[in-house]
């Protein structure tokens, strides 16, 4: 543990609606601005007092442009995290916390917005599947994650039912979230099994699909949290990184079936918060695809590896009613909506702050796991007031 633990907090969450991709009436920048303004409303914050901006995955809305549109008094921190896709989503939260903790900014907006009309298709993976992939017909992250997932199933022995449980848990939770794209469209075992294959072993319902939309949170110093409305979600610990041998290298990663959360990184996360895997009350596990989400839970020790993963990864265990570890409680990327995982940050915060469509009773420790199997991975632990 160190001075960073609990020294910053999220005091506002804002989100736009999710739109089917390409149908947002607002541009990408307007979506981001709407999300930030709603976060300010949630916090009772003056939008002009925001002095920091952080995003990731080549967001098309630069912090300075967003700051100018808001008419902020001063931009003191404007940062984007390197690394493709949603691997950096939690790293963006951590960067905001680092800025506030070090006194370089007072109120930092972390945001992600996407509009296909503004940003084009597959903005999450631009430039990340180069010629050595594409020439061989590997053009989509689904295919890369399928390759890794197939080995996790076939060699490590993780049963396919673990993937299905992640998908069904998300769809289950989405039925109580009117904002979710899958609201009113439940998926059960039969519908999952009958769904078309995308890239084996991944079915349609194993895959997140891009939406138009945006979400933002506000990070401030914990000592100032009382100046804002509502319960703060304290940032207990955060990590980002890539181990040696875990980088973009045309599928030559060490620990190929891992999600990239190497043991030292996971240990740093727990040590920073002074807790362990068993203390997590609720987790938002980034499911670009279900296979990587399972691999991430194994990396974090939330679920046993190999064949035994099947015993833990059941819909019952992963859902709020009776689950040992509810995950993706607003529906997740797969069933709530996918804007590169930023919606999972909002839900991780809401489990502490309030406002989740599926609140976990007495949740004190809320884990956010960023894009698994990405070249850069990241994670953030949020805690309630009782934890600090």
């Amino acid at each position, binding site marked *: 543990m160190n001075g960073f633990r609990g020294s910053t907090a999220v005091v506002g969450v804002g989100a736009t609606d999710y739109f089917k991709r390409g149908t947002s009436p607002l541009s990408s920048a307007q979506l981001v601005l709407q999300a930030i303004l709603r976060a300010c409303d949630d916090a009772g914050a003056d939008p002009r007092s925001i002095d920091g901006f952080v995003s990731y995955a080549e967001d098309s809305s630069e912090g300075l442009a967003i700051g100018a549109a808001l008419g902020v008094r001063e931009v003191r921190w404007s940062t984007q995290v390197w690394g493709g896709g949603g691997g950096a989503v939690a790293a963006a939260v951590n960067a905001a916390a680092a800025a506030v903790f070090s006194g370089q900014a007072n109120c930092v907006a972390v945001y992600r917005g996407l509009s296909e009309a503004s940003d084009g298709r597959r903005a999450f993976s631009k430039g990340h599947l*180069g*010629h*050595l*992939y*594409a*020439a*061989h*017909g*590997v*053009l*989509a992250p*689904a*295919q890369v994650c*399928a*390759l*890794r997932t*197939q*080995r996790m199933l*076939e*060699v490590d022995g993780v049963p396919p039912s673990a993937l299905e449980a992640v998908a069904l848990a998300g769809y289950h939770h989405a039925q109580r979230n009117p904002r979710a794209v899958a609201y009113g469209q439940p998926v059960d075992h039969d519908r999952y099994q*009958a*769904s*078309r*294959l*995308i*890239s*084996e*072993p991944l079915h*349609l319902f194993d895959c997140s699909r891009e939406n138009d939309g945006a979400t933002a949170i506000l990070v401030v110093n914990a000592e100032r949290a009382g100046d804002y409305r509502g319960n703060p979600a304290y940032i207990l610990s955060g990590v980002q990184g890539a181990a040696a041998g875990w980088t*973009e*290298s*045309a*599928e*030559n990663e060490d620990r*190929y079936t891992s999600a990239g959360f190497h043991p030292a990184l996971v240990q740093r996360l727990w040590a920073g918060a002074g807790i362990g895997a068993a203390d997590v009350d609720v987790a938002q596990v980034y499911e670009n695809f279900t296979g990587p989400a399972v691999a991430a839970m194994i990396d974090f020790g939330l679920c046993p590896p190999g064949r035994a993963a099947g015993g833990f990864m059941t819909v019952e265990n992963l859902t709020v009613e009776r689950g040992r570890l509810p995950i993706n409680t607003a529906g997740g990327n797969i069933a709530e909506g996918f804007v590169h995982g930023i919606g999972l940050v909002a839900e991780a915060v809401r489990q502490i702050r309030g406002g989740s469509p599926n609140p976990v009773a007495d949740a004190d420790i809320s884990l956010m796991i960023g894009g698994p199997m990405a070249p850069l991975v990241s994670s953030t632990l949020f805690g309630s007031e009782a934890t600090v």
Partner: protein
Amino acid sequence: MTAEQSTAVPPDLTRTVEAHGKAVATGDNSAVLADFLPDRIGQLIASADVPAQLKGADVRAITAAGEGRYDAIIRYTTLDDQWFELRSRWARFDDGSWRVFSVRNIPDTPPWMDITGPSPDGLDTPHWEGLRAGLLLLQRCRRCATWTWSPRPICPVCHSFDTGFEPVDPVGTIYSWTRTWQPFTPESTGHLPYVVVLVELPAADGCRVMGVLAHADGLTPRIGAAVRGEIEQPPDDRHWPLLRWHLEEQTR
């Protein structure tokens, strides 16, 4: 149910397939789409490569494919009296009708993608030039002899700037695989589904390279199976040669 009965083709399926072939041949698109399972119409449309105009259709075979599904091979004649074949898999839909579950051109052929050849940073240019010369070349440090794939600006082990490329015997084992059904790009139409394998190469200290597994129609690859790479020449000079992988006979 006896074995004979279980493999018998339901008469209503035969009628449906015959009508489907005619609908495709006459360009009756609404009839064709009505034969597709509704949850995958886009995937099915983009899977098969079918010329805009056809002269005729001939149902060559309908055979049981397990799980109550059937495979139909339909031969289509083109305006210049050439022919090609599609194999469609049929399943009973909720409403009792037979619907197309999947479809592909046969025989299976690997796709040729628009994105190919040297990467913009040029690091892998010798690899592509090697394929044109009939060799699989991977990066290997001239100082410490470490194999590195994909290539990097310096050797990540000894930091030498003297990186080179050396030929590798394209023989190895399947490290992982995926069969792709989704048309992620127009170039894949006519080649779906195709199998991509990640191959571990003992001759390059276990470096792994990707490639399409040739003749993978109807087989399920197995991790650890022995494969051999063969360089396939491109259909035109816009494309570069590619290594295609073939299962060694004993592991098929």
